[in-house]
């Protein structure tokens, strides 16, 4: 494996987050979302992505951040892991960056891993801090509950 990985960077509550590009299927503008009753609270509903039904997760709710209404900049990043596809609702998304492993600090050195720890590491790029999300944990933990 090459030591340099690419990450799709998005903004949420003024912080930069990154997800590994191989898990990103597509980035979509906001479309109509149909509410799914009795789904976990952080699932806004399902959307129609070219004939496929994709659940949309509100990351602000997932990370217990304050709720704001969506804007024109809001984007849904469709992540895929094996046969699971889930869209995550983000404040904006505009760039792809490359980081090598040395630029990412593992978090378990910094924090005690909690149940709600979806962070794989902190990437540093020219004084910017990018929170790298752990996709498997983000998408699996739902199934345990």
């Amino acid at each position, binding site marked *: 494996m090459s030591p340099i990985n690419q990450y799709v960077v998005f903004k949420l509550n003024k912080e930069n987050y990154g997800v590994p590009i191989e898990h990103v299927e597509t980035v979509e503008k906001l479309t109509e979302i*149909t509410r799914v009753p009795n789904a976990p609270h952080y699932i806004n509903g*399902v959307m129609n992505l070219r*004939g496929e039904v994709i*659940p949309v997760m509100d990351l602000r709710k997932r990370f217990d951040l304050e709720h704001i209404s969506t804007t024109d900049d809001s984007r849904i990043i469709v992540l895929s892991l094996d046969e699971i596809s889930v869209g995550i609702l983000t404040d904006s998304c505009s760039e792809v960056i490359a980081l090598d492993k040395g630029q990412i600090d593992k978090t378990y050195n910094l924090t005690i891993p909690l149940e709600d720890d979806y962070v794989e590491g902190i990437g540093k790029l020219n004084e910017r801090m990018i929170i790298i999300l752990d996709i498997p944990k983000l998408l699996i933990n739902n199934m345990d509950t």
Partner: protein
Amino acid sequence: MDMAQYMQIFIEESRENLQDMNSNLLYLEDNPEDTNTLNNIFRVAHTLKGMSATMGFNNVTHLTHEMENILDHIRKDNMKVNVNIIDLLFQCFDKLEGYIGNIENYGHEGGEATELINKLHSVKPGDTARATCNKNHITDQNAENSSKPTVQLNEYVNNVVSVAIKDGLNVNLIKISLDDGCVLKSARAYVVINTLEKFTDIIHSNPSIEEIEDEIFGLSFELVVISEKDNKFIRKELNNISEIESIEIIPLSRENIKISQDIPIIGSMDSNDTKNKGNEDGGITDKKTRTSKTVRVDIDRLDNLMNLVSELIIIKTRLEGIDEDKKRQNANEAIEYLERITTSLHDAVMKVRMVPIERVFNRFPRMVRDLSKELGKNITLIMSGEETEVDRTVVDEIGDPLIHLIRNSIDHGIEKTEKRMESGKEKTGTVKLVAYPDGNNVVIEVEDDGGGIDVERVKKKAVERGIVTHEEVQLMDDKESIQLLFNPGFSTVDAVSDISGRGVGLDVVKTKIESLGGVVEADSCQGKGTKFIIRLPLTLAIIQALLVVVGTEKYAIPLNSIKEITTIKESNIRRVQDSEVVLYRGSTLPILRLSKLLNVPNTKELHKDVDKEVVVVIVKKGEKDAGLIVDSLIGQQEIVIKSLGKYLLNIPLIAGATILGNGLIALIVDINSYFKFIGGEII
């Protein structure tokens, strides 16, 4: 990798050949002298041998080769067909089926069938030289297999281990087996590895980390770790991770490490070598190839499909042209034409998905044979309607429930031979398996001429088990009582047998069939036999549904579960304990408010207008009815069922979703689960 495209063909053809072998073996058993059948089996074994040799599945080749030898002896009259040989051949058949299954699921065949090949050798008359030669080969294999807890490491890793042992560190081989139901294996493994990395050094893994990341492994993997912590600590840490079936921690010393040259240090580019060393009972772990489901399609049907698509293209150009001459008439005509084509296209595609139910039925003769031998009952299986076509999905799912019903019939239904003679029946019991299309449904019947269901005993049992009360049971007629069999936790046979009678039987069958959108009922005449009738919809993907509005949301209710639609006055709804009912046509009808169940926001529930009429959709499940209150109706529509995806599995009350004409999604309500909702309160 370049083999991948042939893999699917190989698996399909092997399955066909095995099916062929199965029916021929069954026939040979009854007609041991029939050389024609023998030749057929020989030919099939030979084909399999050739195919597997081409694909490099040596164990399949080996086994079929040995089978050929036996068959050849029989052909040359050196040997007679007897029960032993048939049983042996069936064992070979099972093993071959296992191999093919492994290939399909894991991408490699699994270990060699040494025991079976030994047996094959033992029945062989003469030909000693070869046999011994082969036996040597076998003992070699065994020797290799018996040194089980050792681990093969390359020299570099081995050195690290030696140093670690010298330094007094703990070196452990950790075998992790993931849970069967584990959805994201690689991610789970990743969590395990991450956990271990906090306090250990992982120096070796089998399969390699890369392969684990790419999910190229079965359910288990092995790691060699060096740590200051002891086994207990490691186990405790690992136990915190869910979805792990078992953890085995084996301390390593210098003795149980084998140096092997052929394991490369990093990863394993060509892991074939190591794979083949997996032994028979636990070796099938690595590499899961995803072979997709396929359907063999009649070329005529494809042609038909092609024709329809070309018509679709024609109509497309016609619609494009309409804009220019702007004639309303033309537009309407074109749209009608388009409608006709889409309907035919739907039909054609559905037909492509259809496969004859024979695929499921084929395995039953063998099963009945084995069971009747095991139980010492004489049983013939009569099958008809194998050519009936059903949707591919149904074929995949219907197998288990049918097996269950047939086992039930044989185990509980058909009496012991002596008892049959006493009651003046034929000595041989009969199980009939019939399939036929009926309108938009397919009906499958499992019928036996056994003792029938003792209604009184069923009633007694149901009261004992607390399924119904004594009073209720008095009011039930025979038919209703028989339906009690489908209750969870019901089994009338007192002794639990191997075959059935664990009390989990019929309700599982029922749940499965209902999940396919079908119904199952039982009919029995004491002393004469029992009949189970399964009704399944022809297709699952496209259904007729009623679209309704609740609050601001739209929902689809499958038409086949709707009994009628009516309006009732809000004032007629009565509250009984915690549930609402209405008196409708002389009987009470439980009322459910869809807006409440689905937590629909912004419904004006509070200011109930007493005189207002509400729309009630009366839905049915079996004999039970319930009324669903909705805000308004949109109309009937053909909808395509889509699942909500793996991430949102098991959302209660929702069966799936569909995409409406305007691109929006409407959810399909799961009527069956509504009855669970009222179940406790109504009965």
